[in-house]
């Protein structure tokens, strides 16, 4: 029997964020917004959910005078992503 997919990752925007973060060391909010095409409000909400789940860390700082929010994937996030991909592979039988 196929196992259930992680509901937190089984959303297009959250999965997009995690996929970007899994392949980089860090990415800022503007980068994620540009590359996902999401609105700032929606992106903030989804980042917050991922942070509360312990999948990413969010660091607020400044770049010169501009505020900057940097996101990084955590070990728990990486493991959850790996499991998600494994289950997707089971579904697709690849």
């Amino acid at each position, binding site marked *: 029997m196929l196992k259930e997919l992680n509901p937190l990752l089984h959303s297009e*925007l959250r999965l*997009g964020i995690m*996929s970007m973060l899994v392949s*980089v060391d860090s990415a800022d909010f503007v980068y*994620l917004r540009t590359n996902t095409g999401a609105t700032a409000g929606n992106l903030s909400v989804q980042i917050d959910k991922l942070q509360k789940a312990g999948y990413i860390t969010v660091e607020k700082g400044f770049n010169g005078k501009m505020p900057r929010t940097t996101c990084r994937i955590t070990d728990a996030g990486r493991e959850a992503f790996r499991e998600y991909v494994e289950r997707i592979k089971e579904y697709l039988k690849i």
Partner: protein
Amino acid sequence: MEKSNLTPEQSINVILNAIDQTRERAERNAHRPFLVWGYATIITTLAVWYAIDATLNAHYFFLWFALPVLGCIGMKISFRREGKGEAKTHIERVINHLWMILGIAGGIAALTSWMGGINILYVEALLMACGTAITGLVLRWRTVTLAGVASILLTPLFAVVEGIDRLPVFAALFVVMMVIPGHIIAYKLKRE
């Protein structure tokens, strides 16, 4: 973009697209440090050579201090924010740390050379050529690796050429080591 009923195929597409975009953006500006530091080194070296050759005044060696200034200004202009945000890959972090260590080693070698006893241009060229070759290997850029290795093989020229004439040799090495591969990569990235 928010959807909750993704099919497994859509999930795989989301993952692959996101990873592709990230890789593409990370590689887009990777040639710039080579061009910035390559040209900054060549301009400074030729300025020192010309000034000393024309005046025979050793004080013009202080022109070397223009190199970090030119390089830093060039990097600042080259990497000014484009309003699209920033992402750092793991490889970029490794490369940044590699060049930071080489920069510190180069700085210490330069300070040591004031006390005499070492051929500073040889040491600097060798350090930077090794950095270029390693960068090429890590990024899997054959052109950069070959440029680095070719520069390492050319460094014995400093044993043949003497005195102030080592300066144009040093500048020429940076053409081979950084400027030519930098332009080749820029051309390839533009074409892609």
